[in-house]
């Protein structure tokens, strides 16, 4: 069912109104975001596609409080964040949002479990509680036995799974993933997709920026951007297609 039609509609996790982002001045001015109206409902997995430079990464940064928009409103779980102080934004990023990046951004000198527990420690949890939570999350991403490995001893897919575990550390309202499979081969991509899909099944709200149609296809909804604007929206409802047989060369 379309969540927007429900009378008991939940507060969106993310919402923007007239969102705009400009870089540069005068003739060199670039509209990275141009009037974005967006809502992401709780438990929804939203994919964002579009050509390089269309503004999709900027959108993710603004939604996660990494950048402040030039104009418009950004709401996270009913709270307006575009006017927050730098300190309040940092707090929001630590507590409400989990980031996953193409290049993993793990700390090279820390083990997998130390990387995963870092956000919990920064949020002020005790070292015991942070370690227990980190061990639990590594288990969840299937890397319990790699807990004491340094990132350099892990494959690309394993590093990204550690990064996803880290993103989940403080039970974020939303996980924002920017090209999460951009550095991965197709086997590792499938592993990461399975993991993201299991998070989605467990009710985690996800926003995934991607170039890869295979990644986008696992979302509930796909929006496409061009030149800073939303130009298309597709709902990828589950189990719609009975036509798989057609696609492998079987005939009716």
């Amino acid at each position, binding site marked *: 069912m379309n969540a927007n039609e429900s009378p008991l509609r939940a507060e969106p996790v993310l919402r923007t109104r007239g969102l705009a982002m400009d870089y540069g001045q005068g003739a060199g001015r670039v509209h990275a975001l141009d009037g974005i109206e967006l809502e992401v409902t709780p438990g929804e997995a939203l994919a964002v596609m579009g*050509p390089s430079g269309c503004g999709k990464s900027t959108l993710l940064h603004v939604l996660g409080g990494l950048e402040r928009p030039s104009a418009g409103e950004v709401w996270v779980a009913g709270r307006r964040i575009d006017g927050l102080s730098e300190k309040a934004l940092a707090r929001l990023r630590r507590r409400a949002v989990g980031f996953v990046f193409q290049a993993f951004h793990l700390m090279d000198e820390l083990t997998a479990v130390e990387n995963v527990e870092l956000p919990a420690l920064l949020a002020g949890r005790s070292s015991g509680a942070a370690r227990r939570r980190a061990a639990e999350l590594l288990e969840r991403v299937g890397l319990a036995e790699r807990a004491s490995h340094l990132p350099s001893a892990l494959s690309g897919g394993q590093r990204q799974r550690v990064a996803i575990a880290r993103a989940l550390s403080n039970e974020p309202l939303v996980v924002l993933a920017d090209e999460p499979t951009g550095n991965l081969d*197709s086997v590792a991509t*499938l592993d990461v*997709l*399975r993991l993201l*899909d299991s998070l989605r099944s467990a009710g985690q709200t996800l926003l995934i920026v991607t170039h*890869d*149609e*295979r990644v*986008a*296809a*696992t979302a509930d909804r*796909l929006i496409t951007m061009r030149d800073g604007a939303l130009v*298309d929206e*597709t709902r*990828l*409802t*589950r*189990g*719609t*297609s*009975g*036509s*798989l*047989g057609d*696609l*492998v*060369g*079987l*005939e*009716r």
Partner: protein
Amino acid sequence: MVPDGVGVAVKEPSQGYQLRVVQEVLLALLAAEASHGYQLRARLELALGPLAEALNEGQVYVTLTRLEKAGLVTSRRVGQADRPNRKVYELTALGRARVQAWLDDTSWPKPAPAEFHLKLVAAAAADLGDPVRLVDMQRHALLGELAAAQRAALAEPDHSIAGVLLEGVVLRLQADLRWLEACARYWNTTKGRR
């Protein structure tokens, strides 16, 4: 869209999917060892995974009868203690030659971009519709198919044989979607100039 020189397609819409090259497939499966019909069907199901659900139940048995008439397989009845006798099929020399010819054949089912391309050209020329809208419609349809295929692929365990097949489906759809992007780029930029 019928590829050159492969198999016989039997049109029975209500009875699920047919394997286009079912004769060759069954002969090839029999090359390993003589088998019952149900063993062949089980091996097909394993290889096709979730795609086998749509497969026509009777096709294997109907085809085996045809292959026997054509002299490509022989059968003998084997008694079973607590059940009716079962037919075991075996490849003949003629059948083995047919399998080899199939394995050596490099013809390949072709995608058909010319058809869609000409649809866009015609729509634009006759003002029958906005080519960009047609591209969007097609993109939505393919995305739905990709979503179904990708989810089926995610549901397969590691090293699944059906997973390899689904990967082929997924990659092909991805290629089609990327081509549609190229179409959208072209028609978006030329639209204003006509």
